[in-house]
């Protein structure tokens, strides 16, 4: 079994008021030297069976049509092997 991670972020040109609010709170908390914060979403999909090209293509369609709104968001897909030894 493998995990596929889909990260969804607002496009660079889209204003992120939530990220800005987080960034503005940082100096108050004593965190200096952080000039920008962008907030996004991370989806972890546990895939039954092999993560082959066909499975990734289906996940790409899913991300494009549902997990992200490509009018305002970009997404990246990566496979994260679940280490059998850790179980």
């Amino acid at each position, binding site marked *: 079994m493998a995990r596929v991670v889909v990260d969804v972020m607002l496009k660079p040109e889209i204003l992120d*008021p939530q990220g800005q609010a987080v960034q503005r709170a940082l100096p108050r908390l004593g965190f200096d030297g952080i000039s920008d914060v962008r907030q996004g979403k991370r989806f972890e999909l546990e895939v039954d069976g092999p993560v082959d090209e066909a499975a990734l293509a289906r996940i790409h369609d899913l991300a494009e049509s549902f997990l992200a709104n490509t009018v305002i968001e970009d997404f990246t897909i990566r496979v994260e092997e679940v280490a059998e030894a850790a179980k």
Partner: protein
Amino acid sequence: MTARIGVVTFPGSLDDRDTQRAIRVAGAEPVALWHKDKDLKQVDAVVLCGGFSYGDYLRAGAIARFSPVMEPLLEQAKAGLPVLGICNGFQILTEAHLLPGTMLRNDHLHFICRDQKLRVENAETAWTTDYSAGQEIHIPLKNNDGQYVADAYTLDKLEAEGRVAFRYLDFNPNGSQRDIAGVTNEAGNVVGLMPHPEHAVEPLIGTGRTDGLPFFTSILKKLVNA
């Protein structure tokens, strides 16, 4: 005979009853539609009302857009069925790509609820013929995710084609680009806006005016005269 106008209730819809009432006040017959319905019960038009369908999870409107009822709605809207999306309904229509652009969190990050002044920019859509172009109206606005955004090319295209149907006046309540409060599709049958005309159809409630009523009388006239 009068027109039958469907109002879809999704899990989390809030304004379905008010919308049904507005339709009745205008003289048409409201028809309750459920998100799991696979047909539209032969209605002549549909309103997607406000609320927080599916808790606004993922993105406002993103999950409702894949409800069973949306399948016949998409198909018929593309063939000319008049559809009005109010607030969450507008968000659903953009998620379904029936209308361009999308809505982000209000730029100030607060829920906003106020009487809002708008200018009706396009009085030729199926839902706005009882207004005159340039008319100023006051109707309630209440939302969290009302900031209309689209890329510059889309915005220029909308402006050039007269598809910015409503604009915020005096005060931009959510950071919407070019003060856009609502847009129409190319054919003028699908219209969406963030403010709530259905809450302003009787003098007793809403803004104390009936500035929202022409939405519902416009569509009634269009359907009855068709």
